């Protein structure tokens, strides 16, 4: 069965510091991988996606993620965080079934930014 693990429940970084959020997945085929962000009281906003091709993908708000098949990982990075990046971040894998592609989410990582 498909699964996603986000090992860090909560991360605190200082504004301007670099950020890396970890994500490991388990999926039998070539995965579709996603990072979503959820601000308090808001829905899930897509940050970036990987379907195929270049393993380093760029997203919105200056985020990027790298797909490493050998490590079954899809870590999210940002070189310099801003206070507005404080939110919950979810990694997800798209599991295919008759084209419908349900998402299997990780537990989420809550990001706190220190001023």
């Amino acid at each position, binding site marked *: 069965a498909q699964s996603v693990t986000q090992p860090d429940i909560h991360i605190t970084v200082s504004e301007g510091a670099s950020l890396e959020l970890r994500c490991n997945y388990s999926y039998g085929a070539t995965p*579709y991988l*996603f990072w*979503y962000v959820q601000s308090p*009281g*808001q*829905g*899930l*906003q*897509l940050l970036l*996606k990987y*379907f*195929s091709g270049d393993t380093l993908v760029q997203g919105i708000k200056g985020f990027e993620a790298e797909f490493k098949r050998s490590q079954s990982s899809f870590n999210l990075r940002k070189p310099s965080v801003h206070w507005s990046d404080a939110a919950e971040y*979810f990694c*997800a894998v798209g599991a*295919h*079934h*008759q*084209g*419908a*592609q*349900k*998402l*299997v*989410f*990780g*537990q*989420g990582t809550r990001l706190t930014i220190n001023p």
Partner: protein
Amino acid sequence: EPEVTQTPSHQVTQMGQEVILRCVPISNHLYFYWYRQILGQKVEFLVSFYNNEISEKSEIFDDQFSVERPDGSNFTLKIRSTKLEDSAMYFCASRYGIPNQPQHFGDGTRLSIL
């Protein structure tokens, strides 16, 4: 940019009552989904819907749940007889028809069962 819209934003219901959560997916999307997030837990898949029928459903989606696309724009989730454990945030999502397109989510409906 087109959005998925969900109503109401917050629904309070007595246990045992029926509740209908409503969603308007993005207009040219073909796949529709419901997910839920119990407070403090991960987002969980409930059901996917395509071509007017359920494509896949999870173990959570038992006989108390149903989905419907009653017209060309709305997509609804009905819980027939609510339980306390149905209290959660429910998210609707939609996706365009080709495989390499992501799901777009609404802001969710917070369902509180008393």
